[in-house]
C-alpha cells in the first residue's frame, strides 16, 4: 500500500511538473506573440506620426526595428531554453495521441466507382490545359510573376 502510495505521489508530482512546464511554455509563447505584435503596431503608429510631419521619413527603419526587437530577445532565449529542456527531459504532450472523445464518430467508408476512368480523364484534361496554357503565354506569365518580387504579396507596403 505504501509503495503504491509513493508511486502515485511520484506520478502525480511528475504530472504536476510536466503540467507546470507546459503552462510555462504556453505563457512564454503567448507573451512572445503579444510582444512582437504590439511592437509592430507601436512602430507603425510612431512611424506614421513621423511621416505625417515629414513625408520623406520611413515608417520602419532597420534601427527602430532592432530597438523594438531587443526587449523580445530575453523572452525568446527563455523560449529556446525551455525547448531544449523539453527535448532533453523528453517532455511531450501525449494527449494528442489519445483518441478524440465526444466527437461524433460516423465512419461511412465508401469507394468511388470506376475511379481509374475519372483519374485518366482528369490527367488528360490537365495535360491539354497545360499545353494550351504554354501556347497562349500563360506559362510565361507564371515565370514573370515568380521572378519579380511582388512587394505587396509579401507584405512590403
Amino acid at each position: 500500500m505504501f509503495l503504491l502510495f509513493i508511486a502515485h505521489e511520484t506520478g502525480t508530482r511528475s504530472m504536476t511538473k510536466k503540467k507546470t512546464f507546459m503552462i510555462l511554455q504556453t505563457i512564454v509563447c503567448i507573451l512572445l506573440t503579444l510582444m512582437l505584435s504590439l511592437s509592430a503596431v507601436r512602430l507603425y503608429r510612431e512611424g506614421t506620426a513621423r511621416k505625417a510631419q515629414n513625408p520623406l521619413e520611413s515608417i520602419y527603419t532597420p534601427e527602430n526595428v532592432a530597438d523594438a526587437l531587443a526587449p523580445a530577445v530575453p523572452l525568446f532565449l527563455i523560449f529556446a531554453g525551455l525547448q531544449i529542456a523539453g527535448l532533453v527531459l523528453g517532455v511531450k504532450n501525449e494527449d494528442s495521441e489519445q483518441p478524440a472523445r465526444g466527437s461524433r464518430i460516423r465512419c461511412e467508408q465508401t469507394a468511388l466507382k470506376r475511379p481509374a476512368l475519372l483519374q485518366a480523364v482528369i490527367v488528360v484534361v490537365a495535360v491539354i490545359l497545360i499545353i494550351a496554357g504554354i501556347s497562349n503565354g500563360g506559362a510565361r506569365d507564371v515565370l514573370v510573376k515568380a521572378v519579380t518580387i511582388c512587394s505587396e504579396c509579401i507584405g512590403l507596403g
Partner: protein
Amino acid sequence: MADTSRQNTSWQQAFRPTTRRLVQLYSALLHNAYLKGFISGEIYKGNAKYTCVPGFNCYSCPGAVGACPLGSLQNALASTGHRAGWYVIGILLLFGVTLGRTICGWLCPLGLIQELLHKIPTPKIRKSSITRILSWLKYVILAVFVIAIPLWYGLSQNLPLPAFCKYICPAGTFEGAVGHLANPANASMYSMLGILFTRKWVIMLVIGLACIFCYRSFCRFICPLGAIYGLFNRFNIIGVKVDTERCNHCGACVRHCEMDVKCVGDHECINCGKCMDVCKQEAISIKAGSITLKEPLYVKGSRHKGANHSEKSTRSGSMDADLKQTSRRSRIIWGIALAVLCAALLWFNVLDPSVNRSDHSMKTSDSSTGGKDSALIPAEHESETESGSTEIKTGSETESGYTESGTEPGYVVSETDMGNTSSYETEPETELKAETESESAMESKPATESESAMESKSAMESEKQSADITESMAPVGHEVGNQLADFTLTCYDGSKFHLAETRGKVTIINLWATYCTPCIKELPYFNDLYLEYKDDLAMLIVHPSLVTDDPEEFLADKGYKMPFATDTDEDTLNKIVGGTGTLPQTIVLNKKGEVTYNKIGSVTPQLLEALYHDALSEHD
C-alpha cells in the same frame, strides 16, 4: 544501466523522425534549393520558375526555385481579361488528381512548419464539432480571396490583385518579407514597410500561435490550396486507401486522426497515414493506384487469438523477411532521393545557365514589345562590343558599363560642350551672359592686352558659372549624391528621352510594370505632378523588358501625359539606376542630374511633392 538504456530507447523512439518527417524535410529543402538566395538576398530568376511547386511556398522566398501555385492561380485569374489561365488550372488539376492532399501531409513546407510548431509542449485544443465547422472557412477564403476578388479586379479594373497573398498569406510574410528583411543586403526594403506589413505580421504571429495549440490550424481552417486539393481527395491516385471489405466501421481511424475527418480519405484527410497504425483490421494502406506504397505496421501475428505457436512463428518469420526486403528497398529509394537532392542543389546554385544569364539580363524568348523601338544610347560615349551590342562607356570601363563612384566623373565637359551649353542655360544665366557681353561692348577705354585678358577671363568665369548650375562633378552612380549615367530611350510616342537634355530640370524616373498593382496605382500621382510642374520637371516612366501584356495597349485609355518607355532587352536602365527587380522604384534627380532619392516602394502624392521640392531646393 538497463534502466538507462530503456530510457534512452524510449527517448529515441519518442523523438526519432518518422519517414514522413524525413520526406517533409526533404521536400522543404527541394522547394527552396536556391540556397545562394539566402546569402545574397536575391530571389532565383531561372527557368525552373516556369513550373509551379506542389506545396505552399512563396515564390518571393529567397530560396524558392518554383512558382507558388496559389499565387500563380490568383494572377492567372486577374489576367482573365487578356488571357485564360489554362496553364495554372492544368497544373492544379494534375497535382490534385495525382496526389490530392497527400501534398499537404507529405510535401508541403508550410505543413512541416505547422507540425513542428505543434510539437512545442503546451496544452492542446482537440478537434470538435466547432473545429469541424471552422474547417469550412477555407472554402470561403478560396471563393472570396483567391477567386472572386482577383477575377473582379482583373476584369473590371484591369488591376492584378492577388488578394489572398496581399491580405492573408503568412508564408509570404515569413518566407518572403522576413526572408528578405533579415538579410543586411536588403536594408533598403525597410522603407517600403507600412500598414500592410504591420497587418500581415500580426496575422502571421496569430496563425503561428494557433498552430502551437491546435494541430495544423492554417491547414485546417485557412489554406485555400488545401481546399482545392481536398476536392480531389476521393479519387487521387496516390494516397490513403481503405479496404472496405476489411473495414468494420469501428471508427478508430477517425477518433485518432487529428484532422477534422469524418472518414479516411475525405476532403479533410491529409493522407498522412497515422490511422494505419491504429486500424486493427489492417484495412488502411497508402497506395499509388493498385501498388501498395506503405502497409500497416500492426503486427497481427502476435495478437491473433486462436493461432497456434507454429502458425505464429511462421508468420513472424515471413514478416522478418518482408521487413528486411522493405528496409533494403527503402535504403535504395533514399539513396536515389539524396542523389537527386544533391544534383538539384548543385544545379540551382552553381550550374543553372538561366540564373547566370539572369544576373545580367532578363532576355525573353518572345518579347513582343519590350525594347524593340527603344535604344539605350549614352551621350558622346557610345561604343560597340565584340558581340555588337551597345555598351555604355564612360571615363573608365566597368562590367556594368559605368564608372563606379569615387573615380573620375562620367560626364566630361569638353570645349564643344561648353560652346553648346546654351541648351542647358536658364533665362537668368543667359541674361547674365548677355549683360557681361554688353557691358564689355559699351566700354570706351582702349583695350590693352591686360584688359582684354581680364575681359576674356571674366567671360570664361561667367560661362563657367552658368555651366556649374547644370553640370556636376559628382561620380557617376545610382546612390544618393552620385550623378546618374546618361542614357537615351525612345518613348512610346516616338520621341527620344535624353537624360543629358534634362539638366536644369528636376528629373523623376519611375520603374513600373503592368503586372505590378502598386505601380499601377501610383501612376496617377506621377501624372498629376507632371502636369503641375511640367516646366521644371522632366519625367520618364519605364517598364522592364520582361513584358506580359503590351504596356502601350495597357496605357492606351489611361490618358497619362508623361512619357513612357520600355527598357532594353539587357535591362540597361535597370542597371543604371541600381534596380533589383523589385517594383515600383522611383529615382529623383536634381537639376545637375545628381540622385537625391532612389528607393523601391510605393509613393504617395505628398511624398512625390516633397521629393520634387527637395530636389528643387537642393540647388537653389
